[in-house]
């Protein structure tokens, strides 16, 4: 397990430890600037274009959570799609059947997924980190079965429709643009929370965990507690993404939360750059937004995406941002800037 965790990103870890402030402030700046751009971007894009853009952000939230689980704590979770489904269904069921407001549903979605993460992670992580992959795999299938079979609650394959969109200070977000802007704000808040978390002592502990779990343990970090926490927080982000997904599409059925969704979300983490704060946005862009804009590839897009990720993993397992990072470091080394962060 130790080599699993340590090997993927030699250059990156030192980058994080080295130019910590400069680099992370870059992340902060990009997040805020990105939010401003995304606030205005869909003007004139039409309903569908705006929808795709919003879907990208919602997916990115789920990928961000998984990035914490996989990229920062080094755990494979194959249930992020299922957590998204749980969040979406909690929001849809509470909203349509009990008329509970969206904010409460949103909080409950995150909380439920956090709790489920703890329950799932505890037995699996007691044994070995890769057991989490199999437990979450089983859990995904189970969730899908429940969503499909419990018609009285979930509507089965007929799904749930008429999911209301939230209101903000009395303003309704029913329109595509208004809801998009709402999602931009929520995404920014969630991304900033994660940015803060990774910089905090907790985040350092998560990183230590990924780089060398046994050494981290010998330094007094309670591995199991932190691993569990990283997984639970990551899962909660899946729930948050689901809570936004339900009002976005306004109709949900079990299909988008099947096991393959969880596989895709993992691939998005890796494609963007596992462990990089901005990686999830890039990964989700590749998987969600590009196929909508590049319709000419038709149904083959998933194959193309799979092949791209496979090649990317072979060439550079740290993803697109890892590739850029490597190029940047090489450039700096060539032009003599004293960097000193390369091992």
């Amino acid at each position, binding site marked *: 397990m130790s080599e699993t965790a340590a090997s*993927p990103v030699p250059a990156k870890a030192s980058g994080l430890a080295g130019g910590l402030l400069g680099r992370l402030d870059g992340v902060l700046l990009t997040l805020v600037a990105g939010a401003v751009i995304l606030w205005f971007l869909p003007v004139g894009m039409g309903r569908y274009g705006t929808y795709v853009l919003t879907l990208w952000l919602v997916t990115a939230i789920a990928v961000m959570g998984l990035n914490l689980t996989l990229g920062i704590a080094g755990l494979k979770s194959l249930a992020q799609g299922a957590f998204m489904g749980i969040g979406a269904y909690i929001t849809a069921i509470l909203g349509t059947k009990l008329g509970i407001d969206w904010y409460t549903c949103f909080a409950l979605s995150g909380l439920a997924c956090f709790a489920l993460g703890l329950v799932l992670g505890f037995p699996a992580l007691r044994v070995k980190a890769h057991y989490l992959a*199999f437990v979450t795999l*089983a859990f995904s299938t189970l969730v899908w079965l429940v969503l499909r079979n419990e018609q009285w609650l979930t509507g089965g394959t007929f799904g749930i429709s008429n999911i209301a969109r939230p209101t903000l200070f009395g303003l309704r977000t029913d329109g595509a643009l208004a809801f998009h802007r709402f999602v931009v704000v929520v995404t920014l808040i969630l991304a900033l929370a994660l940015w803060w978390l990774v910089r905090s002592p907790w985040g350092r502990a998560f990183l230590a965990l990924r780089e060398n779990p046994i*050494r981290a343990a010998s330094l007094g970090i309670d591995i199991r507690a932190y691993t569990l926490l990283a997984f639970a927080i990551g899962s909660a982000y899946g729930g948050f993404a689901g809570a936004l997904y339900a009002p976005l599409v306004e109709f949900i059925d079990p299909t988008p939360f099947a*096991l393959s969704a969880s596989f895709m979300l993992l691939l998005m983490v890796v494609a963007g750059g596992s462990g990089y704060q901005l990686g999830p946005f890039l990964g989700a862009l590749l998987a969600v937004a590009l196929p909508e804009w590049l319709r000419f590839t038709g149904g083959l897009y998933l*194959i193309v995406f799979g092949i791209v990720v496979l090649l990317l993993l072979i060439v550079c397992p740290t993803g697109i941002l890892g590739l850029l990072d490597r190029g940047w470091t090489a450039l700096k080394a060539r032009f003599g800037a004293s960097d000193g962060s390369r091992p």
Partner: protein
Amino acid sequence: MAELVAYIVAGLATGAIYALAAIGFTLVWQTSQTINFAQGEYVMLPAILILAAVAFLGLPVWAAAILGAALFVVVFGLGFKLAVVDPMIRHGVLPLAIATMALAIIMKESAKDFFSSEAQTFPSPFPAGAVDVLGVSLSLQHIAIIAVAFVAIGALQWFVTATRTGRQMQATAQNPGVALILGIPVARMVMLTFAINAGLAVLASVLISPIYLAKFSNGDVIGLFAFIAAIVGGFNQVRGALAGGLIVGVVDSLAAAYISSSYRLAVPLVLLVVIILVKPEGLFGRREERRV
């Protein structure tokens, strides 16, 4: 009672097929630390390739089966090892495991887009009908599947324990470093494991597709059951994978018959969670030490 026996035999038949997939999965895991998340797709694809050879090349079924099997072993046994595992293993276990997920998506989507999104009937190599054994009517197909799977697993076991190459392979699985020092061609042995895994997948595919039909999405369930079988039996044991496969098959068959057909999948999942909680090294597994 007669009904119960019939369900158990049916469960043993599908269980034997899961065991084939689980054994291949375990072998590959042992020799190269590769967790193949595409194992279910490995069992799904050969049947599709064979049907494609019949449909597009107009071959008779037996010729298509030989061609499909050969192609699959070369591309997804040897090719997978050379093109995916070799360049990636130096990055660690995690990226490689994720690469196999990408491979799973590629295989599944290719089967859907280039062949068919509908379930296709697959010719059964065995006669239909039933025989009467002590008052219990048993499907000939189930008995034949059990027989073929056990002969295959027996032959594999014989090869691994009784032949020189097999013992070299076993040594490689247990400790590649020492095996190398002893002059065992470790790289060739690892390659052999991948070829055997692909071969077992072809066999499992040919056996299961007449029952479940050949469909691009079959890999999800088959893969899940193979993983569960491998873990229940013990991640590092061939006989564990065999026992695990049979247990999962029987549990699934009985659950479908007596508990609920819509939740039949859930019962093996519960079994998995119980095993992880109670005996995480599996029923037949050894505990592994952690290294710093």
